[in-house]
């Protein structure tokens, strides 16, 4: 029984008892308005067999000022009898049940009526799922009510923010024998001039080098072009909570995710084959593939990943690398833990070409550090230790980018990728 009805019955009972004890029958006249109120309310209470409600939910992602929001529209349609009071209470997310996250609307619905409720939900990267919406039916005075859970399923993935990295000058050691954007250092069907050779049966007459033919009568020469092929790129994202840092609600891991998404998008747009492996409490894999669908698979995976502890298998060197061919260029996003050098040793042993983009955790937490001498000395020592670790990894033929996350990634990546082709070349690139 709701508090309204309880209050009214208590007052009626009080008046009744007062009339009884004081032997003043006219006191009961005061209860008359209450009785009329309750009677009208209860008569209009909807019967169960006349209730037939349908709900529909539509989601739209909008990005005003670069901040993603979901516009949720819940529509309730009454296909049964008239309902004097329908309260729609929508929980913003399936796993959030507190009152703060609920929005509502109260309406009266005749047969065939529908009512819509719209609200904007500020969101971050992630997957948002709704299963149902709560509808509370009551009389016009809300004396009694019953709750119905009406199915209104919907799901939306909010992809991580991405930088527009345009075309990166990628020069991997190996390419796939599939058309792509990367000059493969051999003759083929590209656009850049590669060389001239003697004409062979079957060569297109369009590619005859007429100047050379004129200089050497009786011989024909064909122009050759540099073959352009796709690269096989593997993205490895470190999602271990041990390497993550949180400062003022911002996570260092989110920067890694953003970088991985930006590079993944750029590589796929260039026509390369891209795969993803995320290492946290569990391992998420997106097997190698091309095109828009592959990009969606990668972004969907990056949407749901959270920094989490992998438990006993703490080191990166436990990662299964079977999904990457050893002709892949592996790009690792990790702030690095102490023992992670072993992983890069393993990559070297497996003849992988690799690059490390390491978001700098010390620079990230620096604004929150106390300004006393001990903290500053500790900070400097930690930085020196990190610098030594990065240099030791760079000596394993790994291109290293020490990324201070508040600086743009593009110039660093452009610089690093542009030089990857030279075998044995190794150096660390520092953000600042």
């Amino acid at each position, binding site marked *: 029984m709701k508090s309204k009805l309880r209050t009214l019955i208590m007052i009626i009972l009080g*008046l009744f008892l007062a009339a009884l004890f004081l032997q003043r029958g006219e006191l009961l006249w005061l209860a008359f308005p209450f009785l009329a109120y309750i009677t009208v309310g209860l008569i209009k209470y909807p019967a169960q067999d006349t209730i037939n409600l349908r709900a529909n939910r539509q989601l739209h992602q909008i990005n005003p000022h670069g901040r993603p929001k979901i516009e949720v529209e819940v529509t309730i349609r009454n296909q049964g009898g008239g309902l004097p009071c329908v309260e729609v209470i929508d929980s913003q997310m399936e796993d959030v049940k507190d009152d703060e996250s609920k929005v509502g609307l109260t309406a*009266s619905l005749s047969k065939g009526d529908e009512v819509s409720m719209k609200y904007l939900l500020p969101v971050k990267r992630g997957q948002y799922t709704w299963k149902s919406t709560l509808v509370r039916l009551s009389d016009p005075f809300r004396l009694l009510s019953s709750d119905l859970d009406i199915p209104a399923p919907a799901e939306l993935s909010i992809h991580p923010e991405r930088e527009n990295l345009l075309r990166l000058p990628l020069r991997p050691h190996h390419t796939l024998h599939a058309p792509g954007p990367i000059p493969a250092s051999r003759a083929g069907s590209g656009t850049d001039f590669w060389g001239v050779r003697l004409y062979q049966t079957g060569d297109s007459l369009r590619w005859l080098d007429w100047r050379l033919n004129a200089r050497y009568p009786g011989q024909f020469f064909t122009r050759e072009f540099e073959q352009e092929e796709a690269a096989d790129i593997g993205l490895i994202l470190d999602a271990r909570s041990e390497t993550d840092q949180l400062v003022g609600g911002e996570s260092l891991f989110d920067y890694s995710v953003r970088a991985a998404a930006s590079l993944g998008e750029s590589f796929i747009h260039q026509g390369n084959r891209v795969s993803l492996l995320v290492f946290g409490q569990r391992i998420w894999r997106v097997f190698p593939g091309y095109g828009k669908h592959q990009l969606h698979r990668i972004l969907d995976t990056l949407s749901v990943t959270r920094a989490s502890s992998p438990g006993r298998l703490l080191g990166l060197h436990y990662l299964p690398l079977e999904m990457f061919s050893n002709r892949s260029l592996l790009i690792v996003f990790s702030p690095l833990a102490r023992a992670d050098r072993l992983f890069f040793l393993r990559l070297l042993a497996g003849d992988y070409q690799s690059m490390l983009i390491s978001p700098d955790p010390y620079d990230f937490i620096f604004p929150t550090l106390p300004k006393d001498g001990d903290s500053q000395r500790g900070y400097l020592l930690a930085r020196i230790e990190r610098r030594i670790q990065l240099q030791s990894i760079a000596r394993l033929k790994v291109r290293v980018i020490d990324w201070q996350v508040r600086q743009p990634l593009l110039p660093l990546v452009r610089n690093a990728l542009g030089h990857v082709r030279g075998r044995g070349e190794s150096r660390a690139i520092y953000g600042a």
Partner: protein
Amino acid sequence: MCVAVVKAGQFMARRQVLFLISLAVAGLIPSVSFALSGQWPFAIPLLVFIGLMLYSNRSSKPLLAHICLAGFSIIFAIGVVLNTSLVVMVIAMAAGLASWDLVQEIQSKSPTTLKYERYHLQYLGIAFGMGLLGVGAFHWLQIRLPFGVMLALGIIMLVSINQFITYIQKRTGSPS
């Protein structure tokens, strides 16, 4: 955190006006009646409850509205016992009930549609009218019921309400 796009509607202002009118009726008419019958000290707690009801409207404290309604009932019952006009007290009681209902609608967190507002006010008017008509009919028809009959009718009424609520609950599943 989030913004409901559906607007509360222009009826909100009308509801506020009706709330103030009903509260004025619930407060001023019996106060004058108390003053005229020489029982003006009872007007003071009544005006205090009016003030509290206004405060509960501003501060969205539903419990305060319940307390005010109970307070109105006690003061009007005292008025009836002290032989102040019964009709005035019943009208004031109905107006107090209406103001209590309206204050809770105004305090409701979720926005409401115009149609619901209209329905609610209609039914409130019907309940208000039924209550006054019933009392008025008995009063003008000069039906004087002995206390025993009145008592029996009261018991029957309470049992009927209980039966009615049980019936509604059975008919509609399990209301909360």
